[in-house]
């Protein structure tokens, strides 16, 4: 199970890579994709949509279940990874490369964990 050092993590298993205080990239973690199983559908937001802490901005589906992907920050969605729509399995194969959205104008951040804290957190969840 991978926990890249340079990322921050939310309690609902999203990863966020801050470029600076205002912009970042968001996806779901290795732990999340493993729990979900093989993904067959992704529902993404549109550019210009807003992201809010703790609220769903996307949905992923495996054969058995639907799962919401929640915002780790309050921000505006600047770019959306359309590749994921045709190839949801990229999320399973490379969860840290398969980014969902790029955001700008970050105005607030949720309580986020670093890699070591998140790894500990997943041990309790699993």
């Amino acid at each position, binding site marked *: 199970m991978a926990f890249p050092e340079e990322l921050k993590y939310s309690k609902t298993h999203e990863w966020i890579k801050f470029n600076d205080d205002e912009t970042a990239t968001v996806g779901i973690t290795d732990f999340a994709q493993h729990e979900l*199983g*093989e993904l*067959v*559908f992704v*529902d993404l937001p549109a550019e210009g949509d807003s992201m809010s802490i703790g609220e769903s901005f996307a949905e992923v*589906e*495996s*054969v*058995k279940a*639907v799962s919401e992907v929640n915002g780790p920050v309050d921000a505006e969605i600047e770019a959306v990874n359309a590749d994921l729509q045709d190839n949801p399995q990229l999320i399973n194969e490379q969860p840290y490369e398969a980014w969902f959205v790029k955001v700008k104008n970050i105005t607030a951040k949720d309580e986020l964990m670093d890699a070591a804290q998140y790894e500990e957190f997943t041990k309790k969840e699993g």
Partner: protein
Amino acid sequence: MERKTPLYDVHVTAGGKIVEFGGYLLPVQYEATGVIKEHMAVRTAAGLFDVSHMGEVTYKGKDALKNIQYIVTNDCSGMYDGQVRYSPMCNEDGGVVDDLLVYKVADDDYLVVVNAANREKDVKWMSEHTFGDVKFEDISDSVAQIALQGPKAPEIIAKLLPEDSIPKKYYSFIKDVTLNGMKCLVSRTGYTGELGYEIYCDPADAKKMWETLMGAGKDEGLIPCGLGARDTLRMEAAMPLYGHEMDDTVTPVEAGLGYFVKMDKEDFCGKKAIEAAGEPKRTRVGLIVRGRGIVREHCDTFSKDGAQIGHTTSGTFCPFVNAPIAMALIDVKYSALGTKFDADVRGRKIEVEVVPLPFYKRAK
């Protein structure tokens, strides 16, 4: 409180992700494979399923057949010893109590297999309706069941049994078979739309039976399969699932099971109500999702002019057909092949189209 089948430890060791189903703890899928690989294995090679959670009851005595004829809608007269017949079982309003399989052992000896989730309900219902010279017994706790399904199933079982111990015809069975020293009943039945067998044995033999079958099927690519694949496989084959395509508010005719309701049979429970209901106003259809998304069960369906016309009863992404598909109970006016309407999925309307059932049929 959930119960374990005799194979629980086997599933855990094999990396099974355990969930609760029908009061039992069973694997939904296995770590190394997952639903999709397990589904495809059954369509291209073979899969092994623990189905010990199913319920089994027996009717024995001079009036065994009379009792069964009253309680189920299909006509079970004229079965040969060793034949299996599928039937819905209805309440007095014509609603479905359960769907089941009737195994004729002899004129005075029948085995009936029911859904795990309905076992207690069925046993109560069936025992309350017995009459005459018959002994009704719930033997579920003394029966374990394993299903071997897939195009390679016949090759695999042929390694373990002589030809005369293997049932040839679909929906037939052979009792008192000895497989690797274990007494069992083997039927040519299944819930996948593939060739296959269901093996009934003593719970004490279940682990050895599982390991024997897994060993025999190794070269053919046999893998263990969980409930997730069981559901996607039966969906593609358009096999109904109780609690979805039918329940006690749906008649078997509405559920598309009219073939298994023999109205020319002498009275059976629910006959009068089904007769009085006449032509059904709603019916089961198969749907393929044309819009973006997966349409699952309990989604309301709307005609293009906004009228609510029914709801989906099952639905998921199915691996072999490689598309999201669903079954729905809808107003007959919208049931023609090619009709398009919308399903409401969490507030979003997704277009679906009526297609023929089954979605998948194995090549002969």
